[in-house]
């Protein structure tokens, strides 16, 4: 069973703080993704990674950065948190194969509140 874990379920930070959200998967997946989920907007892709030390911007990368130093771990960083980054953050992973698409497996989410 694929397991994707996220470091916190709930997090409260202050404006201007640097915030780290951690994601770990235990299935040796190559691909990892960070999304934010907002009511009425669905899930939007922030960043993704196809390999260690590799990253690509998604649809809404502004204000975020990522780090992938090990295959199983993908970190999302808010350099200077702002109130408009209050959201639910979801991490996902998927294997890399030659199939047209590989199912993404999601973590439980981190609900971040920036005051």
């Amino acid at each position, binding site marked *: 069973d694929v397991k994707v874990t996220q470091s916190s379920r709930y997090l409260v930070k202050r404006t201007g703080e640097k915030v780290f959200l951690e994601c770990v998967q235990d299935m040796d997946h190559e691909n990892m993704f960070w999304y934010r989920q907002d009511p*009425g907007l*669905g899930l939007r892709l922030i960043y993704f990674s196809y390999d260690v030390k590799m990253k690509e911007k998604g649809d809404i990368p502004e204000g975020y950065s990522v780090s992938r130093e090990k295959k199983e771990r993908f970190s999302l960083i808010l350099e200077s948190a702002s109130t408009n980054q209050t959201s639910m953050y979801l991490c996902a992973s998927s294997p890399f194969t030659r199939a047209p698409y590989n199912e993404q497996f999601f973590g439980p989410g981190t609900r971040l509140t920036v005051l």
Partner: protein
Amino acid sequence: AQSVSQHNHHVILSEAASLELGCNYSYGGTVNLFWYVQYPGQHLQLLLKYFSGDPLVKGIKGFEAEFIKSKFSFNLRKPSVQWSDTAEYFCAVTAGYGNKLVFGAGTILRVKS
């Protein structure tokens, strides 16, 4: 750029009623289509998917979806809903051999017992 539209943001049904959730996408080429579900307090999980072949696909828990290429649609259906189907449902698409999912805004389904 690809986009996905889900027609209803909130749907309320009584148990045993039939369900149809609309999903339309904008992309002219080959697409892969998905429905994900998020039960209250649980992870987002895959309900069903379409890559090719029979346009009527069956998923878990009695759900099915029909791909109609001419209408750019992938509507989700269930003949008789249960209280346990209360959840948020997301339609998603990825084009060709990509792994990047584009999600719709989601539909919150509440089933009254």
